[in-house]
């Protein structure tokens, strides 16, 4: 083995008992990667226990595992072909241990998914397929195992292949090969099996050598999340790992959030061999810069022209592994590269049954091993990229209590209304104290303020001012009130006509708009979500109402545009 050789990390996944450990044991055996005595040791253990020989015992080094006959944790084992080195990760199929499967699979560059030909496609086969797509593992080979149990039947193989391919393609996972094998007997592992002459594809080992490593991380936009800043001597070294891109001395860089720019002064190294003028993706580096700001862990270094996204609200797909259910409005710690912020699950858009791909849109919680689409709201601005643009800066974990309890990928910024940028800052300002409506000053005690009422109601008071045709406005107002009510929010649809008829009869001209706004504003102070169908109003009148109510509390919604549940939930943002 020389320094020049490639290592490819692969994960083996599939339903429990479909033959993952057996396959790995067999690969180790066939590539002569087992230490001397390992087979003998396993034979001895099996004999002592009165069991027949199992390749799986080579991997299941733990006592308990052998007793229960399931693989508890991920092992990483190395083997070599002529082409390259492999680190192979044994991912267990038992549902309870999905967290171990993910721990293994998350580091993999390629996957082998095993299906028992005799038992056929099972729930975990599908769930694992789904998780591979979530982890962004694009290179997958599917092995149809235990062909010996179905007489090496091509018809049955073809059937499983068609069915599973159908499922995977909906996930945008496209396996390179489907290979019929018998892991236990070594058929189609190193060489083409004589028992399955009908199969014209590659045996497993050759198929592995045909997988390729992801390249091109260095060509992507620069992302250097700051890990730490050191001042051991007179140098002030910014340390971190380049997730993508490359960096040279003299480069102009942008530091986000904050948006300061500076220039790379030096790239530091301890030994001469490491002294370089340029570094690239994957390297753990230390740099000094010409302008010394106060830098800290979690900030992102990028090129000025190509900064990461920044937001407090974003959409994500996640898999939940926690002991306790993931709950809406609950606080978690979000870790994304070197950033750590408090966050909450702003909305659960749907929970997907990973096996059937059925989804349930009406849920408040995500249970262990479930996959869900959510909207996350962070306390501070975080820097990231869409997972589809940049895997390492587009994924995060959630910590519940002491444990990492879930992992997710970012699928985009979350924007509710038509002015995305404004919306995001609007919500960024959610913590701004709200000016109270002037009332008679209390003589004793602390006057109750809107924020307190909002906290009680677990919502943020808003005036939703509907526009569009009168008919659409009234329809929307009624349905919106109901939808918010169902979301356990306090909302009230204020009918213009009632107000006009009963209170504003004396008002002349356009003055009624201001009056209406005043009334809405008082209701707003109670913490209520006020839905206003004002009928047709001129633009300048609308702006007047906006000014009276305050632009942060005033949400203009086009009643004729289709709304979503997520949008609603955002509108009724909980005040903290």
């Amino acid at each position, binding site marked *: *083995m*020389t*320094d*020049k*050789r490639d*290592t490819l990390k692969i994960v083996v996944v599939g339903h429990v008992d479909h033959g993952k450990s057996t396959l790995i044991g067999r690969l180790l055996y066939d590539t*002569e990667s*087992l*230490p*001397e*005595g*390992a087979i003998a*040791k396993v034979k*001895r253990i099996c004999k002592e226990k009165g069991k027949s020989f199992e390749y799986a015992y080579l991997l299941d*080094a*733990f*006592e*308990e595992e052998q007793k229960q006959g399931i693989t*508890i*944790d*991920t*092992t*990483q*084992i*190395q083997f070599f072909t002529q082409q390259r*080195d492999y*680190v192979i990760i044994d991912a267990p199929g038992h549902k309870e241990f999905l*967290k*171990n499967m*993910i*721990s293994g699979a*998350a580091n993999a560059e390629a996957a082998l998914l095993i299906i028992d030909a005799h038992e056929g496609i099972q729930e975990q086969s599908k769930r694992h397929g789904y998780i591979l797509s979530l982890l962004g593992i694009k290179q997958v080979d599917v092995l149809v195992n235990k062909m010996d149990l179905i007489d090496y039947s091509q018809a049955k193989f073809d059937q499983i292949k068609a069915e599973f391919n159908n499922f995977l393609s909906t996930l945008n996972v496209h396996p390179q090969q489907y290979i019929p094998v018998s892991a236990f007997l070594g058929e189609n592992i190193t060489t083409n099996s004589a028992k399955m002459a009908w199969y014209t594809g590659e045996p497993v080992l050759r198929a592995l050598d045909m997988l390729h490593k992801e390249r091109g991380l260095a060509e992507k936009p620069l992302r250097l999340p700051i*890990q*730490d800043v*050191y001042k*051991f*001597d007179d140098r002030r070294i910014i*340390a971190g*790992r380049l997730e993508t891109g490359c960096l040279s001395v003299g480069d102009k860089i942008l530091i986000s959030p904050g948006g300061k720019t500076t220039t790379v002064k030096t790239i*530091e*190294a*301890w030994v001469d*061999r*490491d002294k370089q003028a340029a570094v*690239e*993706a*994957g*390297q*753990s580096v*230390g740099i000094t810069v010409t302008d010394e700001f106060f830098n800290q*862990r979690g900030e992102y270094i990028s090129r000025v022209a190509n900064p990461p996204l920044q937001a407090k609200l974003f959409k994500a797909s996640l898999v939940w592994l926690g002991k306790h259910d993931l709950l809406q409005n609950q606080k978690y710690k979000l*870790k994304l590269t070197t950033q750590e912020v408090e966050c909450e699950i702003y909305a659960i858009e749907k929970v997907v049954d990973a096996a059937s791909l059925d989804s349930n849109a009406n849920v408040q919680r995500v249970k262990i091993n479930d996959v869900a689409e959510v909207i996350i709201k962070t306390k501070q601005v975080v820097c990231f990229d869409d997972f589809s643009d940049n895997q390492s800066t587009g*994924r*995060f*974990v959630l*910590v519940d209590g*002491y*444990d*990492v309890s879930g*992992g997710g990928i970012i699928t985009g910024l979350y924007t509710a209304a038509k002015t995305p940028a404004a919306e995001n800052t609007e919500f960024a300002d959610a913590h701004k104290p709200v000016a109270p409506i002037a009332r008679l000053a209390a003589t004793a005690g602390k006057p109750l303020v809107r924020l307190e009422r909002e906290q009680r109601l677990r919502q943020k008071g808003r005036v939703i001012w509907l526009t569009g045709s009168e008919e659409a406005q009234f329809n929307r107002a009624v349905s919106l009130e109901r939808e918010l009510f169902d979301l356990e929010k306090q909302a009230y649809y204020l009918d213009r006509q009632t107000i006009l008829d009963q209170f504003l009869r004396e008002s002349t001209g356009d003055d009624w708009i201001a009056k209406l706004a005043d009334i809405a504003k008082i209701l707003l102070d109670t913490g209520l979500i006020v839905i206003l169908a004002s009928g047709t109003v001129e633009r300048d009148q609308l702006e007047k109402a906006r000014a009276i109510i305050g632009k942060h509390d005033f949400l203009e919604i086009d009643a004729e545009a289709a709304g979503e549940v997520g949008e609603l939930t955002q509108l009724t943002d909980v005040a903290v």
Partner: protein
Amino acid sequence: MEHLDRLEAQSIFILREAYKKFGKLGMLWSIGKDSTVLLWLANKAFFGHCPFPLIHVDTTYKIPDMIAYRDRLAAEMGLELIVHRNETGLAEGMGPERGRLTCCKALKTEALQEVVLKYQFEGLILGIRRDEEGSRSKERVFSERTKDAEWDYTNQPPEFWDQFKTDFPKGNHIRVHPLLHWNELDIWAYIKRENIPLIDLYFAKDGKRYRSLGCWPCTKPIASNATTIDAIIKELENTSVSERAGRMQDQEDAYAMQKLRKDGYM
């Protein structure tokens, strides 16, 4: 990036995470090749300043050359070194004749736990590798130990995307394993490439050399004529004997290491 560069970058990343996250951090230093590589990597990670103390758990049964080498290197590099022994155990006459596993537990596991308590360590860096033996292959990079140093290996939290376990109740500590993803050959290839000074017990003398270092009563040299790193690499490429075959405590029973490590062994 080449293979060794990738391994190195990952280890440095892990060391920096540990340094950032744990107020009180120490690094176990056994004088062997793995801890020597670890020390080298720490120097790289922190630009020539190893910012935490090294801890040597001294069983008093170490091969004498190891101790001499330890003291010389520590002085040369100006390292902060904590040497700790299980004095109570030693006073009561603990030794391998009481049973290898009993001895390991007392003079290594218990001594280590004493250090953790005495200095209130939140993080301990260790140079273990997955390919060494079965129970180590199941380790996490950041692996929690309870107050009693126990390792609950049946219920380890998930660890992925380099987001490690950094939240834990007070009194527990985290074992940090920056070399987990390296194998024995990687270590040698790296020592050669970086030209890292190494204790000469690893090189053959009179047809014998140590492949793994430990206490003299329980560590046997292997038959070898490898006197250079190249010769060692060549030898390893053609062997199918496991690295720890000369470590007699491992052979006591089929689950020896698993049992030891569950109780807090390194």
